[in-house]
């Protein structure tokens, strides 16, 4: 595993930068167009959460190259207020910002592995992995 690159999210347009970089990496690894769209959408959701709910955070990309399979992990790290009730935000339709509330549960369905860790007032770290099929 090597740390590839990251994008700092502060402005709304950083979301676009993050998903463009992510899509580029995904294309290089050899994901198909559908999976590229899934990855770009997942990055968009994670980055938008950073933009909406915290001051600053970053989206990191890692290329995973094991003997048996290749993949890409997207890590969203922020030092925001944290998520109080994780099971609640993972429910469809829950939103504090008037959105659709499909963001995080949607990301979970878009990727193959999904891990979320959050501490009150310390921040949230979300790790999502998508494997090349």
């Amino acid at each position: 595993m090597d740390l590839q690159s990251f994008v700092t999210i502060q402005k709304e347009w950083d979301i676009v930068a993050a998903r463009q970089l992510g899509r580029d990496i995904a294309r290089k690894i050899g994901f198909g167009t559908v999976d590229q769209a899934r990855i770009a959408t997942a990055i968009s959701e994670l980055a938008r959460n950073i933009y909406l709910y915290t001051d600053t955070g970053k989206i990191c990309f890692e290329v995973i190259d094991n003997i048996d399979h290749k993949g890409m992990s997207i890590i969203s790290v922020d030092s925001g207020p944290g998520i109080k009730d994780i099971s609640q935000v993972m429910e469809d339709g829950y939103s504090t910002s008037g959105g659709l509330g499909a963001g995080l549960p949607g990301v979970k369905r878009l990727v193959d592995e999904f891990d979320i860790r959050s501490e009150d007032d310390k921040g949230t770290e979300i790790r999502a992995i998508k494997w090349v099929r």
Partner: protein
Amino acid sequence: MDQKFKKIALENSDSIVNMWINEIDSLKNGNYISNVSDELFESTNREFVNVIFKSIKDQGSTKHLEDFSEKLINLGWPLSYITDGLQVFRRVTVDFILSQSEQVDSNYIAQVLKSVDAWTEPIIRQLVNEYSGSWEHIVSLQRVALQELSAPLIPVMDNITVMPLIGTIDTERAKLIMENLLEGVMKHNSEVVLMDITGVPVVDTMVAHHIIQAAEAVRLIGSTCILVGIRPEIAQTIVNLGIDLGKFPTKSSLKKGFTTALEITNRKVVDMNTENQKIEDMIESIGKE
């Protein structure tokens, strides 16, 4: 003290200019403006150094500085040319004044540095301001141009309007889309609006949310909104995200959407040739009887 330094610098301007030009010439090789012709580079250097000396001589006048920076901006010279040039000028001038003085102590050096800085700083400030001002102007113009492109509405037929969307949708653009859509529906009195998202690279929950809101608003004023241009990969991500777009019709292409729109408005596309043929056949069959 300052006056004395100024006198030294101005009296020996020729030798300072020569030293400066030598230094700048060595800077040219290898970096930014290596594709500029030698004559242009030399004449610009001369002009630059004249501008510097002129502004040292009569402090306060900024007219020639403005002219010079305007020229450089129009020619597209990098800002680093100016900052490097002034940096070199400062170094050369300090060196020169120190070499012209008999007794040199730290206090003296400090004073030389202070006055040379005081000469060059206003020039740097002025030129950098001119440069960034021109950049800001360009950016604001482009923003306006982009905004004009961001939510166009095309009335293609009586009661049918198309809004083609290309590129990323952010919050500001989403607002504009909604406004233009509703305004256009009222203005053109359209029964059906086709929103084409073929050119939208990513549809995430935020974009979907705005689309749903816009379609709902269109429904409220009595028209139908059809979402067209949904590519297969976008369809899959929308399903994965669990977004419900079931409240309004969706089609894969603008063509199919347009056919549906015609159906809603009780019209259809008729091929004139076959129609003519039919009429001719009819006339012929009447003639036979």
